[in-house]
């Protein structure tokens, strides 16, 4: 009775099924859209997460305008600019990795993934140098914080209030630290993507994990694009 029906159904089923298509999706496009949709919602929550910090930065910057300028000037803007360029290059290698998967170019895909991770590590190394400088200058908020007799930009006769400058450095460490944590998570994700790519799991039809991981990486890049001018480049003019 239903035996013939059942075999007929499975054979039809297998015709429809590409191996990458999960059972509960109608088409591969729907499956891809569902995945990236989920990632974009997550990124939306991340915007709000960082948004709170950006708003507290904005409020304190308006309240302690000159003190923030003096504190920002003590950070090495050259290192910050280099890090911005490094992250931009890493974003390029991410899209090249996805392009490599789309045209089934294994060398381009794996090479770009490795380059992305190297850029990410370079970013963290430069960040570490910056933090080391701040520790040596006693600019880390806490018991040994010291910011005495630093003139306010544009007002050489006035000194910055160390308590207000400390708030700038607290925001600096929390915002760049949280961003660096996202970079570490991103490096973890890309390690996994590299292993998957090495095993040949990504094809021109199926490389959704690369696209989703890439969205995350680009988002972390966008956060840095805002952090750089806000933390490093205020009141730089003579």
């Amino acid at each position, binding site marked *: 009775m239903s035996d013939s029906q059942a075999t007929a159904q499975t054979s039809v089923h297998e015709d429809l099924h590409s191996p990458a298509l999960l059972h509960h999706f109608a088409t591969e496009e729907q499956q891809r*859209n569902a995945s990236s949709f989920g990632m974009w919602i997550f990124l939306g929550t991340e915007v*709000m997460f960082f948004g709170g910090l*950006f708003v507290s930065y904005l409020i304190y910057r308006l309240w302690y305008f000159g003190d923030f300028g003096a504190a920002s000037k003590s950070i090495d*803007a050259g290192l910050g600019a280099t890090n911005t360029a490094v992250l931009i290059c890493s974003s390029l290698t*991410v899209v090249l990795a996805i*392009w490599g998967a789309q045209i089934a170019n294994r060398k381009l895909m794996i090479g770009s993934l490795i380059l992305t991770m190297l850029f990410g590590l370079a970013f963290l190394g430069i960040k570490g140098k910056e933090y080391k400088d701040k520790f040596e200058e006693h600019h880390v908020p806490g018991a040994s914080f010291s910011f005495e007799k630093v003139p306010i930009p544009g007002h050489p006769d006035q000194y910055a209030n160390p308590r207000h400058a400390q708030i700038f450095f607290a925001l600096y460490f929390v915002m760049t630290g949280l961003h660096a944590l996202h970079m570490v998570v991103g490096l973890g994700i890309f390690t996994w993507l590299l292993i998957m790519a090495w095993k040949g799991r990504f094809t*021109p039809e199926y490389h959704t994990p690369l*696209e989703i991981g890439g969205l995350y990486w680009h988002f972390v890049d966008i956060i840095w694009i805002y952090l750089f001018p806000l933390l490093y480049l205020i009141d*730089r*003019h003579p």
Partner: protein
Amino acid sequence: MSDHAKSSPLKSYFGVWIALLVGTYLTYAVAKLDLGPYNAAVALIIATTKALLVALFFMHLKGASEKLLKVVVISTIFFLFILVALSMADYATRWYS
């Protein structure tokens, strides 16, 4: 979302990459000029342009077929706007009391 692969996107990828590097240099150079209150405005305009380039071309928001995606992006920006606007409605007007 990803069937844009017919023609090579490499040109736009490298173009956006160069534009982002130029933007970084520009924001660094402009910060050294004294524009008064416009320093912050210029910095934020350059940063937003760079963020848009990344979102539109690297994150493929341009040409995304899924309309729900646009709903998510627009509501994200909207909620961020509420966060900033209502906070500043308090903190920025305290001087008037």
